[in-house]
């Protein structure tokens, strides 16, 4: 009986939940690529990986290992400016700023709604797009303060950004069909361009033309008549001067451009590649999908090597495949959950 009565006295003798040990030693090489693992929505298990193509050394979970804090919920994108990495954490409404040589967290931009991408106008001014806010936030990247907003009436979702001279082209993705033009001197929307449905990815080629990938919305979303398309915008005239329609059952994603700015790549089951002067998409992908369910794609601007991710079942560590610019497999390695984007140093 005594045994039974004392049994409930056991308590609290396990490691505490939610405290992350930060004892791991991490050395971040100066070259290579950061891999941003989204993690699961509402799990808060986003993570940051580092890969050095020269040594093929992979280091996972480096943000929490170095800083003793989780990255947050759904890491969306990352940009590097002046030795600092800005990691946009979509569903945590914040951007973590790290020193890219030590990996140490040095500051954060908080109070955002659903941030997606960050673009630098100058050393003191950056723009942050948002999935739901209906505005672009203007942020000073050195003080981490929100200094202003650019309202985008009628466009709740603002997505990727590409700058041409003083003008910023912003895709409005979710349930939208617009690319907005913003004057970065006045921080005002000055023009808009109608595109296909759901323009997301934006890249700029070597002729300064801006390519936009419109995923067409989703097959079963009930909108009907979807035509996913790849379009090209002439930024000087703000008109679409080239249009490639995909089949209605296509699900294109992840627009990228090679290092020399002359080939456009995207995922549509396999990996498709298009020369910027080509007039047709062709019938065959550059790389076939095989047994892979490719989730993400990026191209190393230095040597045009391809990085492809496969999230497997989206609830375990995903895998990255590295291919040469000619499509020869070089390496494969495991990273974190749902590897979604890449940031080359």
């Amino acid at each position: 009986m005594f045994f039974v009565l004392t049994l409930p006295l056991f308590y609290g003798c396990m490691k505490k939940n939610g405290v992350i040990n930060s004892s791991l030693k991490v050395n971040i090489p100066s070259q290579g690529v950061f891999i941003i693992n989204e993690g699961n929505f509402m799990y808060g298990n986003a993570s940051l990986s580092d890969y050095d193509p020269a040594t093929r050394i992979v280091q996972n979970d480096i943000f929490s290992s170095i800083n003793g804090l989780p990255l947050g919920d759904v890491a969306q994108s990352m940009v590097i400016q002046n030795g600092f990495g800005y990691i946009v954490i979509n569903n945590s409404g914040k951007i973590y700023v790290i020193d890219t040589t030590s990996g140490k967290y040095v500051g954060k931009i908080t109070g955002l709604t659903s941030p997606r991408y960050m673009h630098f106008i100058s050393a003191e001014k950056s723009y942050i797009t948002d999935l739901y806010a209906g505005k672009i936030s203007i942020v000073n990247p050195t003080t981490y303060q929100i200094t202003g907003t650019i309202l985008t009436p009628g466009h709740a979702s603002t997505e990727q950004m590409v700058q041409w001279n003083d003008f910023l082209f912003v895709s409005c993705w979710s349930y939208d069909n617009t690319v907005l033009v913003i004057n970065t001197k006045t921080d005002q929307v000055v023009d808009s361009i109608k595109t296909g449905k759901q323009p997301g990815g934006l890249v700029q080629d070597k002729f300064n033309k801006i390519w936009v990938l419109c995923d067409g919305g989703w097959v079963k979303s009930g909108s009907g008549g979807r035509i996913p398309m790849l379009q090209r915008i002439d930024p000087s005239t703000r008109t679409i001067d080239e249009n490639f329609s995909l089949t209605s059952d296509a699900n294109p994603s992840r627009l990228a451009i090679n290092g020399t700015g002359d080939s456009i790549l995207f995922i549509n089951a396999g990996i498709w590649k298009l020369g910027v002067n080509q007039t047709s998409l062709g019938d065959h992908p550059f790389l076939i999908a095989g047994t892979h369910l490719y989730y993400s794609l990026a191209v190393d601007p230095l040597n045009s090597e391809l990085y492809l991710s496969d999230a497997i079942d989206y609830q375990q560590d995903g895998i990255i495949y590295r291919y040469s610019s000619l499509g020869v497999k070089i390496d494969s390695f495991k990273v974190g959950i749902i590897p979604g984007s890449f940031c080359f140093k």
Partner: protein
Amino acid sequence: MSNNPPIFYLRKLNHQLFFKVLIVVLMNTEVAKSQHITDTLRIKTIEVFTNKIVKEDAGKTISKIDSISMIKALISSLSELIAQNTTIFIKDYGRGAMATASFRGTAPSHTQVIWNGINLNSPMLGMVDFSTIPVYFTDNVSLLHGSGSLSESSGALGGTIKLENSANWQNKFSGRLVTGIGSYGTQDEFFQVNGGNRIFQSQSRAFYNYSDNDFPFVNKLIANIDPQTGAYLYPTQRNENSQYKNYGFLQEFYFHPSERSFLTLRYWYQSNDRSLPRLLTNETAVNANINRQSDKAHRPVLEWKFYVTKGTLNVTLGSNIELTTYQLKTIVSGAADQIVTNSHSRSATYFIKAGYNYQFSDNLSLITNANITTNSVYSNNSPQNGISQEYDRQRKEHSASVQLSKSFNNQLSANLLVREDLINGRATPIIPSAGIEYHPFADKGYFLKGNLARNYHQPTLNDLYYIPGGNPLLKAEEGLMADLGNGYSGKIGKVNFHADLNGYCSGINNWIIWLPAPQGYWEPYNMKRVNTGGIELNIGVNGKLHRVSYHLNGNYTYSRSINRDDPRNWADESIGKQLPYIPRHSANILWNLSFADFHFTWSWTYYSERFATTSNDKTSTLNVLSPYFMNNIYLGKEILLNKSKFDLELKILNLFSEEYQTVLQYPMPQRNFSLLIRYNF
């Protein structure tokens, strides 16, 4: 530099799944029992053990929650009662927020909850949100483990929780009042009044439950950097925007017009208004991403029971109608509110059930049941600036079962059940179940039992028709399950003792899970197979030591749920691993002492680590939920004032202020208190 379609849809889907809850379906009740819960917390030593085999239950694992536990949890939701007293694992999204069950390592939709014949599982989502079911509104709770549930319905691959109410025919006028206050602006009110005679009884109950729920916590998952020292400063935060308000009433009429006839009418209305807490890593704007869910439920049920010579006829008809709205919005200064998600749904179940129980003799009986159920769901989801996505579907289910039960002698009983379901006119394969129970020592309480069964669980209407993603070609989940158990109940000296040790295993083919699809949204798909297996141990002891009455109930569960799907590719590490969020080990003890007018209860629960990944990866602490112990204590005293009996009770929850998470990154409160007064009249 890339576009990211899945997250948006993932977001929408998860909000759908995380929220919205319950509803509807079927069958039989026991009217004539008069074992009403008395609100007396001092223990009466009742001989609850019987060594007689109920032939109809031979081989089944059935456990009941005792009346002391029911009283302790009176102002709680069913989630707390289940977590503290049974072998079922409750996945709890925080105080007042959604709670789902995993019974024998299965999915939330595999636990069915039947309240006086109405199946509370939502035909839309398949599961029950246990946080929305007040313990106030039920008198008896029992668990039918695994295939033991087949006498009620098919589909409960984990098991069934049966909630029942009953009338006290001796009652003239009585009632009870419970009023409580608690930490974080919490208020609980409950009122019940019963009146009637030997022919007619009425029971009316109402409850109201509100909480600001803004408990403070030190958030160690975010930190500001001290500009001077560079040290981390962990902010103290409050659980903002998580207030909840629930209220409801239940009216029951019991009519006993003749010796042989009982008629019962019940109507339960309830309203819940709540939200899902923010994650600990969230640092969005204060007015961003505010979610709110409100549910309304109507549950009328009429039952007629008629005793004929050697038999009982039982007819039940009822419905369960649930209306849910969910909104996720961001308040933007200088612009209109951004409504990110605006969804509403209506799910309705109507059923009629008839049963006939015929006793050929004391040793042989035949139970036949038939029912017709119509489920309909209208679901509308209007995303921001998007085209509203909706479906409106019905499913008609016919079901019939026959059970033959035989007692061979005082020591051996067996039964055989065969069930057949028609889903929208299409017959499922025959569902058989066979059970046997043996008491090797005629006058002792030791028994052995076993059960073998097949079971099917139909996809939910969301699985089939949700836009986007629903897959009308999904196959039903098919389980083969086996149970083997032994136990003892009886007296050791002056101590009443019972122990039950059961092993179970099942193979479930076509297990349904939702996964991201190439199109960017999520889709349900049939996994090839999941194997579950485990051990359940339940021990109960009660007696009296000098003037102290004691009562102890403990459970331990070992649970394996192993993914036996085909690997997606060479890198897939999920095969052979435990399914996410199911603990291997869990245990609880509820220990109650009473002395004179004082009573004391200690509730202790334990869960081993749980994995958020299918690969059970432990290299990152981000994806592992650490084991935890939880301690709650209850201190009470009965007070007699002018012939009126009051009971004053102080509850201390999370006694040792354990820092814990039941779901990744959802905040949980530290030590907190509530004080309540019960008054019986």
